[in-house]
């Protein structure tokens, strides 16, 4: 027997009917995915820190060499010689010693020289975002009165440059190359994919054969060939842009294929037929009805492809085919750390690796979250 005993139903929470656009639903669903939100926050932090404010975050300039050649990370102290706790952390000055047998330099702390660490300290002048003049740095010691002493939280390289500073600036190029490269890929991929899927026939055939050719070509040799074609006398910045172009040129094929597939299925949707039966022309069908339908997928594909872009830059630069000093990218930094000697003498140079790994993981976390969120009608 079916009985409804309690009259609870009436009391159930009233739902306010708010019209929600597609994107607000997406946002709502995305927010509920903790992992994706964490990934997104990491990426926002990284991009903000590395791209916009590395000058502020690091105490030194990128190419500020010093006597601290191959010096390890500076130890930060809270307790002084007499065992008293200091509320302001400090570092000791160091004295360089050379081991005459191994020819290895060592740095010995000199407890008589104490340099307290300050936050928002005045240091080298720079222009934030290229136009805001400032000389504030997040942390540092009183640089003006002690020009010879350094605080190196991740050690220094063979020229005595602060490794943390180099990671920050290297991140700027590496992260940007992923973003700009992916943007170009998106542009090529979606445009050609939409055209290919919508018109079909000979156009489709031609575009598909080109993408197949590009996909069939082994990545690294193709990169090498294209990178080798960049004239050596070009400025590093020109090389940088060339490299982004090359990366996106090689990678648009996959995206174009996926977009084409989506267009092929969307093309048969009744709402497209409805617009067509009302007399809509090709461009309206493509850009008003078909393209928006692919956007969610494209965003996901793009997000998941950016790590590949970053890794490709890293790999190329590591091979010496990509960016070259004086430009600094994570790939360039890895190249520095790639010799046995470097790993033996300056293992802290491997600090670059966790930054790369965290970036890649964060992108994947974000991409997975987006994939679920962008299909808000899929599962309720």
């Amino acid at each position, binding site marked *: 027997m*079916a009985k*409804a005993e309690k009259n609870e*139903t009436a009391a159930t929470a009233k739902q306010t009917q708010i019209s929600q656009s597609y994107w607000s639903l997406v946002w709502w669903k995305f927010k509920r995915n903790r992992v994706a939100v964490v990934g997104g926050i990491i990426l926002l932090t990284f991009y903000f820190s590395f791209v916009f404010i590395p000058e502020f975050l690091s105490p030194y300039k990128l190419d500020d060499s010093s006597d601290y050649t191959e010096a390890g990370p500076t130890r930060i102290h809270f307790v002084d010689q007499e065992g008293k706790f200091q509320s302001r952390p400090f570092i000791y000055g160091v004295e360089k010693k050379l081991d005459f047998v191994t020819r290895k330099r060592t740095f010995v702390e000199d407890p008589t020289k104490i340099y307290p660490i300050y936050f928002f300290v005045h240091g080298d002048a720079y222009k934030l975002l290229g136009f805001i003049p400032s000389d504030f740095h997040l942390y540092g010691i009183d640089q003006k009165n002690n020009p010879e002493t350094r605080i190196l939280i991740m050690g220094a390289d063979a020229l005595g440059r602060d490794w943390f500073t180099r990671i920050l600036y290297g991140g700027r190029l590496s992260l940007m190359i992923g973003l700009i490269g992916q943007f170009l890929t998106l542009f090529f991929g979606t445009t050609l994919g939409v055209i290919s899927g919508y018109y079909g026939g000979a156009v489709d055939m031609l575009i598909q054969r080109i993408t197949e050719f590009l996909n069939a070509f082994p990545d690294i040799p193709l990169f090498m060939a294209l990178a080798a074609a960049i004239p050596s006398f070009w400025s590093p910045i020109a090389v940088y842009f060339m490299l982004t172009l090359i990366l996106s040129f090689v990678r648009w094929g996959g995206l174009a294929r996926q977009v084409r597939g989506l267009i092929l299925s969307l093309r048969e949707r009744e709402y497209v037929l409805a617009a067509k039966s009302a007399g809509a022309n090709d461009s309206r069908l493509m850009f008003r009805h078909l393209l928006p339908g692919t956007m969610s997928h494209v965003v996901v594909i793009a997000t998941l492809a950016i790590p590949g872009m970053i890794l490709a830059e890293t790999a190329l630069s590591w091979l010496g085919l990509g960016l070259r000093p004086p430009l600094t990218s994570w790939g360039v930094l890895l190249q520095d750390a790639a010799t046995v000697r470097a790993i033996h003498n300056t293992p802290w140079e491997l600090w670059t690796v966790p930054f790369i790994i965290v970036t890649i993981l964060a992108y994947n976390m974000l991409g997975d979250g987006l994939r679920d969120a962008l299909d808000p009608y899929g599962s309720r």
Partner: protein
Amino acid sequence: MSELLNEPLIEVKDLRVEFDVRAGIVKAVDGLTMTVNRGKTLGIIGESGCGKSITARAILNMIPKPGKITHGEIIYYRRLKSDGLTQMDDIIDLAKTDPDGKLIRQVRGGEIGMIFQEPMSSLTPVYTAGTHINEAVILHHLTPVYKVGDQIAEQVMAHRKVTKAEARVIAIEMLHRVGIPKPEQRVDSYPHQLSGGQRQRVMIAIALSCEPSMLIADEPTTALDVSIEAQILDIMRDLQQSVNMAIMFITHNLGVITSMAEEIVVMYMGKAVEQGKVIEIFQNPKHPYTQALLRSIPKLGKKTAGERLATISGMVPDPFNLPTGCVFHPRCPLFMSGKCDKVVPKWTKVGDEHWASCLLYEEE
């Protein structure tokens, strides 16, 4: 057992299934009680969202997330055929079983089979027709990449101790029984090589390959053409008689249910509103919803020019914000103010084996 006696197979008692979604809690099934008798067909009819499919899934303890059974019992009078000679009886509450446990997996497919509406999506395309049926029990789907024969065989092997060769023989036999021509050849075809009607036949073969005591058919013919629908309904009726199997037949089509079921439950917004023999329900509907539903379908061969259909006014209520009292009262033509919007109707006997939940028939 005597043919005349109704021996219960599944007893659903005060079942409630709730979905906890963003906007609140949806009571997909709200206090449903009904009985499926051994060897008989119970029809469940209602519009989309009335909870009929969720009820079917609840019996197999396969409620999709974020739904769960929050209250009630689903008593299953299990009869184990241990060696074909002796019988072991057992009573289990399916609502309390572990949804991923071994027990419910034995029941699913092995003892209670299920067929769905859309034959293509539920046939796995990589298996041939035979494999499908073998597997039915596990996945309840045809895998498009397997031959149908393999799929049947897999299902059989999951629930019976037979060899691969024996399972194939059973698969061919099952395909033959559901009326697929040349089953020896068809057993090696893939789902996409079959027509919609044949795929639904394969689904039935899978569901029946383990000789279940009950078949749940959820809109099995909705996607099919009229001529194929007639064939499938015929097969289901024939097979039911030969294996003495109960059928729970879920549909929104009043015509189909008339030709299949002996007894009907009419559902509205997660509740049963009326239950009775088919003839009773059609000739003497008691609940205003049933009456309106019967009037709103165009009758074949009874055209009068310019005639309008009777409609049920308004829309199905917002599941998050159900009306007070009787859930049907805002749409009901016989609405009694001060009563229907206040009092929840009880399940009342309105005739011989005929119940309805409507305040019109309740005595003070």
